[in-house]
């Protein structure tokens, strides 16, 4: 017997950005597929968006996620989260911030209740939300707060060729270097290893741990964190039975032959993780949040206000995010 997989909950994101457009495009390519999803969005704005860019995507208002499963092959199902004012492409309007936030809250609520399989978020515009009183540093922190409890969210970026996890994220490089700690590396790597086992079906994941400094410090001559911080973390992880190895020179660990030797790269700072994945696959990267009680994926791009409403946005990253969330949700439903 196959377990029933509830639909994925897709958030509205910034309604003035490309989120609606890529969602409509994604549905038209995935309507016949196995994975089903429901948008937590304003049906009228999605219909208007479809008309504006000339996409013949039918939009259907539904009253619950269960109904969405049946509707999905015929129309993009939408659980209504009404906007305060009509969205205009490229024009931020702080009056719509409440709806953006409600969409996220509702997606998390349905997923925690088991009525949605996972949360897929589309990009938000933080500045606009801040003006409406949003106080979290970003999407991920807000999701962690909604999850309740003491959860440590870990950001993983994945494309078909590479998975990367930065230990430090949105901090100045100087602070990332100064605050790098053995404990942070161990905690991040452990959450990553567990998630790869549970949600990605990798039995005993191999973690390649990057050094911090050029040439991984070259024996301490170009920085000592490899010796004092990173190597001790690797030893602790190994003692816990996790297949971690390194520290590796950051500039040679990402080419194809090296990538074949690991399932995920644990990186010491944001761009050490982001540069390789963007260089390898600019459009197809997926951002996955690990360490929360629910699964969340998102496309690895921003609101792209500059091209909103023109029909030029590429849905690949959102489609990859949906595919990944769908696989994880199916794996969890079968557990």
């Amino acid at each position, binding site marked *: 017997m196959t377990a029933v997989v509830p639909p994925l909950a897709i958030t509205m994101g910034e309604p003035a950005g490309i989120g609606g457009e890529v969602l409509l495009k994604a549905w038209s390519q995935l309507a016949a597929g196995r994975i089903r999803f429901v948008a937590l969005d304003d049906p009228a704005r999605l219909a208007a968006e479809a008309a504006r860019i000339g996409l013949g995507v039918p939009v259907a208002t539904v009253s619950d996620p269960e109904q969405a499963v049946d509707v999905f092959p015929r129309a993009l199902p939408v659980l209504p989260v009404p906007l305060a004012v009509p969205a205009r492409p490229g024009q931020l309007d702080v009056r719509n911030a409440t709806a953006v936030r409600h969409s996220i809250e509702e997606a998390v609520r349905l997923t925690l209740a088991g009525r949605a399989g996972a949360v897929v978020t589309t990009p938000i515009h933080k500045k606009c939300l801040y003006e409406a009183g949003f106080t979290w540093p970003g999407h991920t922190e807000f999701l962690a707060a909604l999850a309740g409890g003491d959860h440590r969210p870990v950001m993983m970026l994945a494309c078909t060729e590479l998975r990367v996890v930065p230990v430090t994220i949105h*901090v100045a490089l100087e602070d990332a270097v100064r605050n790098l700690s053995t404990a942070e590396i161990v905690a991040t790597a452990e959450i990553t290893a567990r998630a790869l086992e549970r949600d990605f079906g990798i039995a005993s994941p191999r973690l390649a741990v990057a050094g911090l400094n050029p040439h991984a410090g070259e024996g301490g001559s170009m920085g000592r964190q490899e010796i004092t911080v990173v190597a001790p973390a690797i030893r602790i992880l190994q003692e816990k039975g996790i297949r971690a190895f390194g520290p590796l020179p950051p500039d040679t660990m990402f080419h194809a032959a090296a990538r074949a030797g690991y399932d995920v790269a644990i990186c010491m700072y944001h*761009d050490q993780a982001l540069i390789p994945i963007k260089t390898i696959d600019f459009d197809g990267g997926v951002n996955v949040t690990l360490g929360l009680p629910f699964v969340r994926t998102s496309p690895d791009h921003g609101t792209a206000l500059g091209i909103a409403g023109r029909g030029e946005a590429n849905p690949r990253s959102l489609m990859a995010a949906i595919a990944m969330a769908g696989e994880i949700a199916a794996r969890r439903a079968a557990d």
Partner: protein
Amino acid sequence: MAAQAGSAERPTIAMAMGDPAGISSELAARLLSQEDVRAAAAIIVYGDRRVIEEGARVANVPLDLYVVSPDSALPGNPAKPVLVDLGNLDPAEVAMGEATPAGGAFATENFRQALRLAAAGRADAVYFTPFNKKAMRYAYPAYDDEIRFVSDVIGFTGHTREFNVLEELWNARVTSHIPMSAVASTLKQETIVSELELTDRMLRAAGFEKPRIGVAGLNPHAGDGGNFGREEIEIIGPAVKTAVARGINADGPYPADTIFVRAKNGAFDAILTMYHDQGQIAMKLMGFDRGVTLMGGFPFPICTPAHGTAYDIAGKGIANLGASRHAFFLAVRMASRKPPS
């Protein structure tokens, strides 16, 4: 008659044979067997006849060179490459795949001779096959890198910098082999401006009319408007403005994670990065096998393939010549454009 640099038809390239225990001799022999290479420049090779013959045997290519002794005069505008046989290494003494004092002495001596020829104005550019750092240090304990060695040999004190070059994209960096903890405090507006000036000058020397240089930020998302660091606002941004005011086509700072994608899509000819791995990660992903290293800022260009001596495949005859050819032709291109003195 002595060879004159900068002959009307084609430039003179002084070539040094690199570390003998890896793929360098094989690459040298194969490169020198190629018709377009032989036609593009007058080539003066420094090394040992026996070592390059061994390289030709491994590469399975014919060797057709003028062999001269170190004390004889160099032929002018030679029809084929000239090997100055320094008689400085017996290949029977080379343990393949091993960094040795003898190998280091061989490579440093070849390099020194090639540099002196160019410094004397008798060659327009220098080219070398890969060195092994450990072996070089046996022979020359003060050896940090090629830049330091060249500066010592020719007594040069000006502003120099290593450039990483793919055919379609150049990369220069403001800081290099220093700890990451020292990067932010090392960044200075004047340094960035002078790196931009040197980058602009080198690209022009390679034939770019008005080179477009993209400048990377230091912090995630280039600081996100000051939220994750202020170096973009206080140091890098003003440096770019100064460079632009001096006629350099510089642009930035851009987030480091997407600046190479922009470049790949044709937005820039070169990227100036703030630290070692910011550029090295992307450049190695974009062209691991064909990258070229240029030592820029010296009175003549010095080029070499970016890869190393590849001890693991030494003697097998399978070394890829791609980067060696790109490095050689970059040397030819820059040598040909050197303004007449």
